[in-house]
């Protein structure tokens, strides 16, 4: 649930980048970090192994500025993608207001994408969150790789996007689709604060 301070008119939202190992979750955050001016971001925190694999999480706080008179901030987290960090993923997912699922477009990674997506749904359910209503967008990363190595957006839709949520083709390493993905999830998360149904549930 987004944290809202009515007195000082501030909104803080937690967004988690989820997906299989090496799909590009940390790369998304690194790109965002590199684009945003110093005064609008905090330090990027990475709890990683010596080989730069995410061990616990990456974290990047962003100041979005004022929206409808509310100072709006985003907390961007990634989870470790490797299968054996299940407990860590559950912890990071706690209290998430929205999820970006970063899929690896390589054909040989399809099983890992599906397994991670199922893992996301199970973890959301375990925390009492309805996977069907949690704000979610998909990012099909590595679409810059040769055509014969990757699945098309339509093929990935067929495999993963059965909810018909917003999805974005991306090459996160070069920043393509990163901005659009962040805008997509921010819009879905904030939309909940603009709708009477969500406001009534707070």
């Amino acid at each position: 649930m987004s944290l809202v301070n009515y007195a000082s008119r501030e909104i803080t939202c937690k967004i988690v980048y989820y997906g299989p190992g090496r799909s590009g979750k940390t790369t998304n955050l690194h790109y965002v970090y590199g684009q945003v001016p110093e005064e609008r971001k905090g330090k990027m925190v990475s709890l990683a192994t010596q080989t730069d694999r995410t061990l616990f999480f990456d974290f990047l706080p962003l100041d979005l500025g004022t929206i409808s008179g509310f100072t709006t901030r985003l907390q961007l987290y990634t989870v470790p993608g490797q299968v054996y960090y299940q407990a860590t993923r559950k912890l990071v997912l706690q209290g998430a207001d929205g999820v970006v699922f970063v899929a690896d477009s390589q054909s040989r990674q399809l099983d890992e994408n599906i397994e991670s997506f199922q893992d996301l749904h199970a973890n959301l359910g375990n925390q009492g969150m309805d996977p069907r209503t949690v704000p979610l967008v998909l990012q099909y990363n590595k679409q810059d790789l040769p055509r014969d190595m990757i699945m098309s957006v339509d093929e990935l839709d067929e495999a993963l996007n059965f909810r018909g949520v917003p999805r974005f083709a991306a090459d996160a390493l070069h920043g393509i689709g990163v901005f659009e993905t962040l805008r997509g999830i921010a819009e879905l998360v904030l939309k909940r604060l603009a709708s009477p149904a969500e406001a009534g549930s707070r």
Partner: protein
Amino acid sequence: MISVAEPWVEAPLKRFVDDARVTFALLIYPSGQVLGQSGFSRAVEVMSAAALAAGIYATVRELGRTLDGKGFRDVFHAGAKRRLYLAEAFTPRGPCLLLTVFDEQSSLGLVQLYFEELRTALAQTKVQVPDAAPMLDENFEVELNRNLAMLFGRAPGRRHITPTS
């Protein structure tokens, strides 16, 4: 200077900071969302500290369960000049964590003493329910898109943004 996201946190947190004479105090939900803080100057730094504190506590709790069969209730770390204390409390909204940093002006015993008072106060506090009206305008997307575009340097006028931290 105390700043809070929930008004019911302000009085007990201020009393704790004054009595325990700590340098920093940060009250958060276990998910890393900030309830209130004292001692930090930038909002983004508060969020980073909150994320790390939530991570430390989650890790230590699981370590306690693994080694001792139950989670540790608090964590203490002594640095060269500053010391850190992290512990769990409960509010009508659910569990929360206090991260506090102190120096030679205070002591672990003093911090733990006043933390117990803070725990009691938070458990007994009355939580105000906010107005249920929608907060954001229907056309908030326009502002969101403009702000994000400026943040990423994709729109003219980036230099006109006023920092809000």
